[in-house]
């Protein structure tokens, strides 16, 4: 059957996919807020700006103030920064490790595959949070960046598995054999022949890793193992619970951070499904 040119085809479907449109809109909204948000506030996250203590949202303090009179909106936009940083660094690192392990295991096969797969399976069954917890507990200095690194280092196994399976099937394709007959070396084949075929897939993987890293960071922050300085959405929730916002009914303190995480991660998931439909002709709706 005939096919229109590949690139136009993707664009055509991408622009018509509602899931993609909704997902990307939400993600971009928060991304813009992250960069533009600090322009709308004159405070720092921990500054005691409202002597009245906890106050509901008002024109002066859009998201209200905490028990200590800190501006929730300020905390929120700076917290968003930490969230996106964790997503990019943690999710990126998780993707990177997973992809490299998966590529090598899938392409080399044999004993290399055997060893890498065993390691993958081991890291896969160890609960991520438990390992993060024990590392974080002993770290003397913790920042958003180190947190991201550790999240990335524990989140890669499922990616490695998936990439391995994909590489495996690509490796048996005959164009890889032909590349070998052209005298290309292994790395060249992996990066010039195998990897480009998986770009769409890797994008999907990264999106999922991004969302996963955000959720993991929120969990760590919430139990007090987050960064020692700065603010994050998870820490906002931790403080809110710690200082009784629940009992006192200070809903404006704990609703925004969780809602933002839910919206961002949810939008990422929906984007992922939308992209999958765009890339995968089988899933396209007629």
């Amino acid at each position, binding site marked *: 059957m005939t096919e229109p040119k590949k690139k136009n085809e993707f664009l055509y479907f991408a622009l018509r996919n509602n899931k993609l449109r909704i997902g990307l809109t939400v993600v971009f909204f928060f991304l813009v807020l992250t960069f533009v948000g600090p322009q709308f506030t004159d405070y720092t996250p921990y500054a005691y700006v409202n002597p009245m203590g906890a106050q509901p949202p008002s024109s002066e303090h859009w998201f209200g103030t905490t028990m200590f009179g800190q501006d929730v909106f300020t905390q929120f936009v700076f917290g968003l920064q930490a969230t996106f940083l964790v997503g990019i660094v943690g999710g990126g690192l998780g993707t990177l490790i997973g992809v490299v392990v998966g590529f090598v295991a899938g392409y080399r096969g044999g004993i290399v595959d055997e060893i890498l797969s065993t390691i993958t399976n081991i890291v896969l069954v*160890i*609960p991520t949070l*438990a390992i993060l917890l024990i590392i974080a507990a002993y770290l003397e200095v913790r920042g958003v960046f180190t947190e991201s690194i550790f999240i990335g280092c524990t989140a890669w196994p499922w990616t490695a598995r998936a990439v391995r399976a994909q590489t495996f099937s690509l490796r048996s394709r005959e164009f890889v054999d032909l590349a070998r007959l052209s005298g290309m070396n292994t790395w060249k084949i992996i990066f010039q022949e195998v990897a480009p075929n998986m770009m769409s897939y890797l994008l999907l993987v990264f999106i999922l890793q991004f969302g996963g890293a955000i959720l993991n960071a929120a969990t760590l922050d919430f139990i007090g193992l987050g960064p020692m300085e700065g603010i994050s959405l998870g820490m906002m929730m931790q403080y809110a619970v710690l200082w009784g916002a629940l009992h006192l009914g200070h809903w404006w303190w704990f609703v925004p951070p969780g809602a933002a995480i839910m919206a961002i991660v949810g939008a990422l998931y929906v984007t992922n499904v939308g992209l999958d439909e765009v890339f995968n002709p089988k899933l396209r709706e007629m």
Partner: protein
Amino acid sequence: MRRYFGRKLFIYALTFFLAATIDWMIPRFMPGDPVQNMLSRAALHAEAAEVMHGYYTRAFGLDVPVWQQYINFWIALFHGDLGTSVYLFPQPVLQIIMRAVPYDIFLLLPAILLSWLAGNKFGAFAARSKWLDNTISPLGYILTATPYMWLGILLAWFFGIVLGIFPIAGAYSFTMRPHLSWAFVGNLLKHWFLPFASLFLVKFGGWAIGMRNMIIYELEADYSHYLEALGAPRKLVRQYAYRNAILPQITGLGLDLGVVVAGALVTEVVFSYPGIGYLILAAIQNQDYFLIQGCFLFIIIGVLLANFIIDIVYVIVDPRTRTGMQGETV
């Protein structure tokens, strides 16, 4: 089949071995002196600090060579000796953990199993029509993207504070003593419900999405098309697809346990529910390293055990693993 289990057991044994080793290694190879850190940060009486210092030097066995420390650690482990808690001094860590474990089982088991069952049913239902799909799937994505603690906080705030119909702290009322009576069991369930609900809802979303995707895939499989070509009613086609779609969901259950554990930890924190999660928070706040390490080991053991049970179930439900042709790469 024997090979399949052999391989699985090997992986689990290796995992446990490595996890325990990490557990042992981290306090020793992290920067700084853990004993000093712990004692300086923990608020202790002077004489207690004296006792503790002597105890920890012995416990960490810093006077013997590293390999000796390592072997001693394993010997102690096999004797069930996980050390002594700092913040609940002088209770042994094992004893403290054993007290918490029943609550975890009580909370996690129903949450995991019921969300899995309901999620699967709902996901299969969503795949029935476009209209259902377009309403149920977004709900699933929103639920599965919700941070556990946030849902917990919302539920606690709304049902506990605003409506005031559920308690939001503890496993039972402070005024009660654990005993077997309707009143106590009722109280227990009332405290249990909200943490359970928040765990259940988030997981439910994930399973529903997973099932919906799997069943759509199965409905496009060759055997489904063949059934259709032979005029099988939709009910039978769906029934077959559902049975086959459930298999990867079982595997998914194993892979997902780590996430559920994380969710349980923060949920317990929100509701002050006295399981391991709550214990960990207390241990972190009190710099009780022995307790943290003990909890870590328990979580690993729990997850490995659950995985093994799932493996057994999988072999029972999927004939392909039994005939020995597949199953190596579950």
